[in-house]
């Protein structure tokens, strides 16, 4: 049976990890390549880099980071942040990434997702959705610019549309929960996962192993993305997998 995936996410700015990884064996915790290698050894199922470099002119830096990562680790790598053109995607895949995640550009031009999936294949196009609950309602809206701009678009309907346009996977971040450590938005995760056929990665709010379990089991997510609980060494990937596995979640255990 297919296992559920545990995906650490590294925020990278100007070629450096923003929230430093707190592993004892790292010489340079700010180096994304070294952090990626540490997660590779720790048994992560995939890795994600979110490039938050503000300037489009500095994109060469992330390309170099991807290249050096791909030279050293043999694990699926997703790269997101600031992707606007087919050329951006091509450069990232050529450097050695397997998937790109598209967020704002999809909202501005949904056809971009269609073109990207037709050109490169659905399997490498992840659509990232930042969603916030509508006040007092069992509904969520799509936000852009790190949760500042409300597009008014219904998040569930948007996910279905992105699937139709060729998204191979949805990365769903709850903007209400992101950075809170109080747990994923389970109703959102479940509603969206039930609405689409493609895999859903839950993101935003992980603070402990129970949260991961809820997202994967009750939320129906296929994977969980987390940053701080791994970076700060709250849990190792191995601990998380062991506990989840004992609770009946299908995990890939590594030696």
């Amino acid at each position, binding site marked *: *049976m*297919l*296992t*559920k*995936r545990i995906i650490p996410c590294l925020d990278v700015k100007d070629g450096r990890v923003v929230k430093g990884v707190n592993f004892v064996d790292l010489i340079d915790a700010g180096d994304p390549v070294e952090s990626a290698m540490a997660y*590779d050894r720790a048994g992560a*199922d995939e890795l994600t880099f979110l490039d938050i470099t503000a300037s489009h002119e500095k994109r060469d830096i992330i390309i170099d980071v991807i*290249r050096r990562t*791909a*030279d050293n*680790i*043999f*694990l*699926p790598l997703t790269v997101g942040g600031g992707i606007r053109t087919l050329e951006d995607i091509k450069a990232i*895949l*050529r*450097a*050695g*990434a*397997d998937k790109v995640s598209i967020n704002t550009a999809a909202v501005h031009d949904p056809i971009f997702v269609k073109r990207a999936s*037709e050109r*490169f*294949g*659905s*399997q*490498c196009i992840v659509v990232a959705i930042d969603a916030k609950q509508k006040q007092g309602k069992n509904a969520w809206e799509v936000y852009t610019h790190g949760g500042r701009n409300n597009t008014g678009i219904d998040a569930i309907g948007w996910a279905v549309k992105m699937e139709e346009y060729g998204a*191979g*996977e949805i990365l769903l971040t709850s903007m209400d929960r992101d950075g809170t450590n109080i747990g994923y938005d389970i109703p959102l995760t479940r509603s969206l996962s039930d609405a689409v*056929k*493609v*895999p*859903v990665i839950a993101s935003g709010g992980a603070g402990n192993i129970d949260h991961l379990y809820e997202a994967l089991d009750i939320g*129906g997510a*296929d*994977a969980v993305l987390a940053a701080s609980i791994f970076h700060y060494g709250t849990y190792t990937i191995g601990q998380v997998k062991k506990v989840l596995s004992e609770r009946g979640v299908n995990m*890939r255990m*590594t030696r």
Partner: protein
Amino acid sequence: MKKIAVIDYGMGNLRSVQKGFEKVGVDAFITDKPEDILSADGVVLPGVGAFKDCMDNLEADKLIEPIKEVVAKGTPFLGICLGLQLLFTESEEFGIHKGLDILPGRIRRFPADMLEGDRNLKVPHMGWNRISIKKECPLLSDTADGDYFYFVHSYYVDTPDKDIILTTTDYGINFTSAVCRDNVYGVQFHPEKSQDIGLKIFKRFGEMI
């Protein structure tokens, strides 16, 4: 030194395939030139994307004949993911399209109604899954029954020739995840994305050249 040609026809992440071979001490280079393929000691056909687009690209780059020629003359040949699927007769992806027709069989889409408990299984089949070994083969001599590999695909191989099936994998149905006939090998999973367990397959393939 002997060299493996990794065929470039404009699709996907070839760099990881090349680097994966390098990591296990096998020389590999990326090429789209028929003469390079014909003179290589081993050939790898990677690939992601749509079946028809890939066949069209191979055709446009005049790579179909060289591929058939190296297969016929006994050069070790490895298809990965879509590269495995292209080896077969035809595919149902977006209409019926002809493949390289080196191995018999049809590429079919996973059924829409596969269940796990009360939930529909997602398509693409994306993530880590196990293989069950059906037949001994030098390609798998470092691989154990039940090892995990990384998969990403919505279509699978359906072959009438059960003798070519090396491994199967369970995802709603029990599908063929690796094949072998003479010098032709194919894997549905991505060895270059399956950490050390994946690279062992590259090492074994490198030893055949």
